[in-house]
């Protein structure tokens, strides 16, 4: 028998008053021990999902199951779920030790056991020896770790993280990304991480849920979502991308503003209107004669790892190019790309149909 999913949302809808729907009929299942990320712009409902799992609010309709048990009406303090809050929410009147021991004291564990567990949790987050510090004496990154220690010390089924890295500076943030990922793997717990930062999501997750306006646009591994975005929104939100309108001439042939290109997509209706995505790093600068496409360089920025070129083709579409080669602003250049670089998105395709279509391509299309 299959193990019940650790979290299951069944037709979950949430609205605050009759007009604002925050979540619109959400369905998903989460497996135990994985690192999930809820990704989306602010107001997309990602934090609402987290608060529903934590028990800080109840769904307006639909059911939430934890380990196969309905938990709609189980209050937050009876759920085996702990949260790392965006502002850490550490208790300012308690020191580091007492903050971490808070949950253990409520469980009325023995003094010795509490001490052992707190010390162990502090070791886990690389803060040994900090137990007697006051919260006010800790830096942002250290508070972050205390908040994580306070959550994991209770041995919860799920750890919820509500944009916990957003208050940290860039360097610390990427450090914590490694640490969180490693921590999750060492603990083997289910992490549900909320963020609006796509890089964070791509770097850490086993699986990403891209949310927009209260709905799941797409879910999948970071690679799936990056390489095969389902629609304009996901393509645009995850990474930088060139999105243009096109037409599917036939299987493996796509037409963009007067040019036809080979691609690897099939099974669409002839002459169906589609959106085309090509990632900037898949475009390669070459001479005008050798390029599949002729563009004019409008601006060029040096980004350190690469140059970022903004170019325009004759039809007026903008093509963003990431290239290690420098080009001359104002000059005409050719752009080259592989058929695999073209990603075709049907308009208004559901996630289910999208997955089916991708499967139907089989190996041969990719082997080409």
């Amino acid at each position, binding site marked *: 028998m299959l193990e019940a999913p650790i979290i299951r949302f069944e037709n979950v809808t949430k609205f605050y008053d009759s007009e604002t729907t925050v979540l619109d009929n959400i369905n998903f299942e989460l497996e135990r021990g994985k690192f999930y990320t809820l990704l989306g712009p602010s107001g997309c409902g990602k934090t609402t999902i987290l608060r529903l799992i934590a028990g800080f609010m109840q769904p307006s309709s639909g059911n939430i199951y934890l380990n196969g048990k309905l938990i709609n009406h189980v209050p937050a303090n009876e759920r085996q779920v702990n*949260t790392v809050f965006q502002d850490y929410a550490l*208790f300012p009147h308690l020191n580091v030790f007492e903050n971490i021991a808070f949950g253990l004291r409520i469980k009325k564990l023995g003094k010795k056991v509490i001490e052992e567990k707190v010390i162990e949790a502090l070791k886990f987050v690389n803060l040994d020896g900090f137990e007697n510090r006051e919260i*006010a004496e800790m830096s942002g990154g250290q508070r972050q770790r205390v908040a994580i220690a306070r959550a994991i010390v209770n041995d919860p089924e799920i750890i919820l993280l509500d944009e916990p890295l957003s208050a940290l500076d860039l360097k610390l943030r990427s450090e914590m990304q490694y640490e969180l990922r490693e921590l999750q793997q060492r603990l083997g717990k289910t992490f549900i991480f909320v963020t609006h930062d796509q890089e964070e999501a791509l770097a850490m997750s086993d699986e990403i849920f891209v949310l927009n306006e209260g709905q799941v646009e797409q879910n999948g591994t970071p690679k799936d979502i990056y390489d095969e975005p389902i629609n304009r929104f996901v393509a645009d939100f995850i990474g930088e991308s060139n999105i243009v309108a096109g037409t599917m001439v036939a299987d493996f042939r796509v037409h963009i503003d007067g040019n036809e290109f080979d691609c690897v997509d099939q099974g669409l209706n002839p002459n169906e209107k589609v959106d085309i995505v090509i990632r900037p790093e898949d475009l390669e600068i070459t001479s005008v004669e050798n390029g599949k496409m002729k563009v004019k360089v409008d601006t060029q920025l040096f980004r350190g790892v690469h140059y970022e070129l903004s170019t325009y083709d004759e039809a007026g579409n903008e093509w963003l190019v990431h290239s290690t080669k420098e080009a001359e602003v104002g000059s005409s250049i050719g752009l080259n790309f592989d058929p695999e670089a073209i990603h075709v998105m049907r308009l208004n395709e559901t996630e289910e149909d999208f997955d089916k279509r991708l499967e139907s391509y089989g190996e041969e299309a990719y082997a080409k």
Partner: protein
Amino acid sequence: MQNKNSKSIYSVPYFVWILLFVIAPIALIAYYSFLDLSGNFTLDNYKNFFTSVYLKLTLSSFWYAFLITLFSLIVAYPTAYFLTKTKHKQLWLLLIIIPSWINLLLKTYAFIGIFGLSGPINAFLQVFGISEQQILFTDFSFIFVSVYIFIPFMILPIFNALDKLNPSLIDASKDLGASNWTTFSKVIFPLTINGVKAGVQAVFIPSLSLFMITRLIAGNKVITLGTAIEQQFLVTQNWGMGSTIAVFLIIFMVIIMIITGQREKGATSYGKNK
């Protein structure tokens, strides 16, 4: 130099005020406390204060002030908590504050009418066949009116403390398994203790020296340090003894301010208490 001069000009009103209305009166009181009825130096006033009459008086003053503070707190804390949860909290708060702008004497007189033998309360009781009750000039009416007068001063600091409390701390407490009661006793109350202390200070200290409400509402039933001072000065004309009581009252106030004035660590927010 210019700067320093202009600064000292601005400070003049302050120092004049302090000298005339704080230092001089306290110095005078201290001076009078060492004088007997005929104006000779004596320590008898202080000796007398430690006799059973005055000690009992002090004790009962503290007892009444304690009761007034306690009942104010019992009403004010839940009220303040409720107010922070309402939608237009500043408006509801204002409605509670407004009566405190009305003259104290007027409000006290109003209660004489309300609690009087022919007042509305007795009229209401008579509907149920209960005979006229003496409500005025009792401990009950004294404490009731005092609590009524002082409650806004208790609500305000507690409301401010609760309002400043980060709501995610309450979520965090529940998240870690705490019940509503544990969340209150371990998180909300400790973090709003400064508001409570400020409220206790604002109620307890003036309650110690109440005399007008005592006189009008409690008649001669309740004698406190405030009424004793009034009697010594105006009735007995013993300025020395009156001043001595006042000196002790000031000492008590200072002690209470020290006790309730300690700032708890980190009670408002991170970093502020560094």
